[in-house]
């Protein structure tokens, strides 16, 4: 194979020059970065179910927005926040997951209702569920960037309390941090990430991007900051590879994203098991009481 054909294979025509692909690269990278950041806290707090339920519940908002002729992004934001709020109000110690499940099914039931009375066109629903990365408009890219920058700013501002409350809730309370407030900040972060990610990766798969890389990184990174950086890097890398594969094969991007995330997690697990076999002590994150 000559070098020209290798380059032609790696960079198929149009992958960087077509307008919709440019939008996809920018929005995809932004979404991967915030998924890595928010996912770090999701994994640390053992809140995968919330990370699944909020984007999925926000899907109902998109269906409702289509029904009344409003912007999907607005519908997503409203329902993501409402789902988070519902979970925050109803959660109670061990019954955490029950509250999440009930809020999720109620939101989905409403979504089903909107779909059935609204004659929403089926491919539109499909792309909301599974993502339509090549269908992103300039305006959507703008909003995704605004939301992403807000998330980064909030995390930078509240990093210490968020981390402390996620790792050792009891000590954090003693030190005068308000657990309910920090819970609320976390849930708002998840809602914001869901709003930005759902139009790009879909309601079902924004969850893969949030949980997979962060879970793998939490196994590998010894310090919180390292783990977060690793998670962001892995999320961005898997999104880029997935975008490329999806461009070449025209298969749905969500499949590639979630397969790469699973691969990263399994490799990290195997790596950890080997390292443990050699008698090394694991990093601080692994033993954290959550």
């Amino acid at each position, binding site marked *: 194979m000559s070098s020209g054909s290798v380059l032609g294979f790696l960079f198929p025509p149009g992958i960087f020059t077509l307008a919709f692909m440019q939008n996809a690269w920018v929005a995809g990278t932004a979404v991967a970065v915030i998924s890595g950041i928010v996912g770090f806290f999701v994994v640390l707090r053992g809140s995968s179910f919330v990370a699944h339920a909020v984007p999925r519940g926000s899907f109902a908002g998109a269906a409702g927005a289509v029904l009344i002729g409003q912007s999907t992004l607005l519908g997503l934001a409203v329902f993501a926040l409402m789902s988070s709020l519902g979970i925050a109000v109803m959660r109670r110690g061990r019954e955490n997951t029950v509250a999440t*499940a009930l809020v999720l099914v109620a939101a989905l039931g409403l979504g*089903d209702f909107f779909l059935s009375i609204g004659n929403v066109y089926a491919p539109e629903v499909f792309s909301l569920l599974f993502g339509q990365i090549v269908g992103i408009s300039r305006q959507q890219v703008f909003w995704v960037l605004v939301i992403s920058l807000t998330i980064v700013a909030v995390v930078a501002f509240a990093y210490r309390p968020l981390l402390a409350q996620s790792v050792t809730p009891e000590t954090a309370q003693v030190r005068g941090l308000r657990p309910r407030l920090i819970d609320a900040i976390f849930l708002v972060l998840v809602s914001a990430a869901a709003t930005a990610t759902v139009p790009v990766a879909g309601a079902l798969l924004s969850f893969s991007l949030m949980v997979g890389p962060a879970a793998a990184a939490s196994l590998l990174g010894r310090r919180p900051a390292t783990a977060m950086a690793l998670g962001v890097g892995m999320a961005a890398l898997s999104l880029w590879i997935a975008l490329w594969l999806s461009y070449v094969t025209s298969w749905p991007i969500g499949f590639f994203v979630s397969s790469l995330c699973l691969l990263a997690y399994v490799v990290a697990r195997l790596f950890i098991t080997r390292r443990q076999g050699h008698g090394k002590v694991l990093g601080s994150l692994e033993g954290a009481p959550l």
Partner: protein
Amino acid sequence: MNYLWQWLWPPGLWANSDVRTAFFIGTSVAIAGAVVGVFVIIRGQAFSGHALGDVGATGAAGAYLIGISALWGFLAAGFSSGIAMESLGDRVRERDIATGVVLAFMLGLSALLLYFISTSTGTAGAPIAILFGSLFTVNPAITPEVFALTALSILIIALIYRPLLFSSVTAEVARVRGVSARLLGLMFMVALVIAVEESALVVGALLSTALLIGPAASAVQVTRKPTSAIFLAVLIALGQIWLGIILAYDSFFWPPVDRGWPVSFFITSLALLTYLTMRLGTSIWRHRRSRRPRTTSTSSLVASDAQGGTLT
């Protein structure tokens, strides 16, 4: 009075064969979901229960592509994911992540399979039907299989009832008394997969979670005794599914369109409403009745009951 009767028992309800099938299948699915659901609540496995319903859709899409019965697709996807979740995550926190990673992968796979279906058949409606399902479009031919699966899941629960309760509540005590938590966890997973997949098959992944979590969570608010919780959960589940079916039948004449509101909307709303009412009601009742410190933990009270029952 007459109006109310007309509303609760609208003319022609029982003459409609779709409604009859929905009643029979819905009843069977609701009973299995409620019985298994009580243990899902006690064990804190709501996420696994929901995830198993979602992965069923992947199996259904796969079964559709290779042309076998959807039931086998649901069960195959459920069992493989259930085993993967159990073996990847043994500790509580790991279980959350393991469930998440497996679910994420299966959702990605379903994106691919549904893409193949929509490109080969040219319709995007099939994926939506698989994801949401509808009680009114169930094929009556699968009624015997559904009844058999309900019986099987309840049989498994009945067989391991005492030790399961024991290990769910106090893992340490159970271990001392020679109960293998690992084996019980696996057997419970089998019952859970059967109950979730049969309901995901007939009512869709969405409703299967509602029927698994809703009635059991409501029942556990009121009574801490496992046996009464199970009976109450079954009663609530039956009430919800019957009322849901009747409301959906009534709604054919409601605005804005004359083709009915989805039954899943009614059942999920009823589930949330019942849960909130029960929770609010019991907390007010308890507050009034006594001034001693409230014990809200489900596990501690169930624990005392389980020990009182077995240790004598």
